[in-house]
């Protein structure tokens, strides 16, 4: 086995894992705070990326309307605004009416939501592939290629750094701020949180907004990598095995799970794929998660499942 090639595979797997982790993070946030398994997270990524594209690119409707495209930073700010508006609408129109329903009903509602967002996105922004360019460096890193003969995408390094920053910010937000504490209280026990005067509705808006912003980051990264297109919403499905590995309620779990899945997938594709005909990337993650679940049903970092009658 060629060591250099192996480490290249490993690193690109890790980087891909970071991308999965970015999507999985959004899931975890919402699941923790509201117990909703948010299937629409992938579509949120797509939606955010589409909105951003329209704000900053030269064939977006801002350009057509005013004759100039917005600068990137303003575009991102506006998109954050859009995501917060979406979060508010979701809470207002959907979640508020579904309090106390079975988890499966909430899950189905988010699938419905995914359809709505997809339809709205398609109608507003069109459904062709759009290259999102916000000035993230592309191509291989020259330094590593020259000195160590390693081939690593710059974009993936940026993604990894962004993810690290994002997790740090989220951790601080959860641990240090007043709202963060309220969020953790809600995650712990809805009723107890209500009884000490935390408004569930506000918390849900906040959590969905945060998830929307995380979706925007994930959307930017995936959009820069492979263009903004419908398949973005499918990476949500890839985030599911990540969640299983890490546990539904754990932020570090989402990161570690993402890394494991990313590396496992790449290594399996390259070393085991040719033996069985290739393209095993599609299902390998799920199988890995399945086998893993047989031994540890609550995931790596999930809360221990205690069952009583």
């Amino acid at each position, binding site marked *: 086995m060629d060591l250099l090639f192996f480490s290249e595979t490993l690193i690109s797997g890790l980087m891909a894992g970071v991308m999965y982790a970015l999507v999985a993070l959004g899931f975890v946030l919402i699941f923790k705070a509201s117990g909703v*398994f948010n299937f629409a997270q992938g579509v949120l990524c797509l939606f955010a990326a589409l909105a951003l594209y329209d704000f900053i690119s030269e064939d977006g409707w801002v350009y057509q309307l005013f004759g100039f495209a917005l600068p990137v930073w303003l575009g991102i700010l506006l998109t954050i605004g859009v995501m917060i508006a979406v979060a508010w609408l979701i809470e207002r*129109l*959907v979640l508020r*009416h*579904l309090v106390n*329903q*079975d*988890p*499966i*009903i909430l*899950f*189905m*509602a988010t*699938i*419905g*939501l*995914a*359809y*709505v*967002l*997809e*339809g*709205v996105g*398609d*109608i507003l922004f069109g*459904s062709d592939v759009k290259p999102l360019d916000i000035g993230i460096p592309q191509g291989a890193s020259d330094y590593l290629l020259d000195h160590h003969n390693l081939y690593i995408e710059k974009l993936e390094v940026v993604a990894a750094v962004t993810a690290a920053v994002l997790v740090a910010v989220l951790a601080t937000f959860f641990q240090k701020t007043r709202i963060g504490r309220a969020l953790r209280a809600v995650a712990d026990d809805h009723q107890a949180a209500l009884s000490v005067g935390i408004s569930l509705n506000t918390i849900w808006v906040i959590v969905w907004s945060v998830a929307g912003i995380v979706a925007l980051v994930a959307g930017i990264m995936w959009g820069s990598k492979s263009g903004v297109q419908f398949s973005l919403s499918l990476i949500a*499905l890839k985030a*599911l*095995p990540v*969640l*299983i590995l890490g546990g*539904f309620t754990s932020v570090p779990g989402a990161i570690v799970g993402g890394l494991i899945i990313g590396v496992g997938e790449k290594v399996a594709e390259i070393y085991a794929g040719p033996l*069985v*005909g*290739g*393209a*095993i990337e*599609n*299902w390998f993650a*799920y*199988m890995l*998660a*399945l086998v893993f*679940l*047989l031994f540890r*049903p609550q*995931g790596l970092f999930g809360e221990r499942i205690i*069952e*009583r*009658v």
Partner: protein
Amino acid sequence: MIYREAGQFKSTYADDQAIFPIRQDRISLTIFGLLAFLGVPMVIDDYWANAVFIPLLVFTLAALGLNILIGYCGQLSLGTGAFMAVGAYATYKLMTAFPDLNFIIIVVLSGFVTAGVGVLFGLPSLRIKGFYLAVATLAAQFFLVWLFNKVGWFFNYNATGQINATRMEVFGVQITGPEATPTSRYLFCLLFTVVFALVAKNLVRGRIGRSWMAIRDMDIAAELIGIRPLHTKLLAFAVSSFYVGMAGSLYFSVWLGAAEVTEAFSINQSFYVLFMVIIGGLGTILGSFLGAAFMVLMPILLKNFMVGGIGVEVVTAKHVEIMVMGILIVTFLILEPHGLARLWQIMKEKLRLWPFPY
């Protein structure tokens, strides 16, 4: 008034255990049955068979299967599309290997093959529950679709990778292939759906169904009163997959006639059937019929209304259709989370007193 069961006395145990104890139910079901078996075949043509009736029946069968698993046994599954694919490919292999076999036997055999696969992928349900299980069934979804796409044996090594239904007959009447009449295809599907709906209805009100429901409501408690979880859960997976497999078999052979696995049996198919079950009503047999009817008819009506009625372009109409479906689903879940079957139940209560509510 209309729906009053007063005066219908039960004097034997057999009466008491009748599958439809209320006279009005029996009458309306007989009328429906006559309409379905005699009325529809007289007027059916190719368009109605392909666009409305056969999809309706096929998806009802699939929804019945999924409803047994989710609604009665409480095991969330997202692998319906893949299990339908198993049924379809089993049918394809059987129909090419034994071209003279009665097609009924082939469909039922495909169901059994799918049941076997279902049990295999149901094994994790003994350890994991809820959404974790749902993701585990996604493994089945992606793995099986990949398998049917990659391994040539399943599609007899033909160049396109598609499977095509060959000519099959039941007692001399042609059921599949291009020359089959819409009437024969419709009646064949109808037969399967009705027979197996009755089987399901009887299963779920007997000992087996009750043990499923006990597992659904609280599995540890069920275990304590002597229900074997291994046995019960796997049985639910087997029966459910059996139904879904037959639905897949009919879907491929009678309805489409040709199928390509990544298109026809994708994850969207799983969600589609799941929607039917939820919208129809979890844990009701009637709900499977209503849910399938809703999900099959709604897009057709929407499309006709938008393209034919107000002249929206076809591409835009497609997007709007997706969006409206989403809105409808969400609205439905908010207004009536127990589904259409529950609406019917409420209506029955009202009809019992109507027009004298006091």
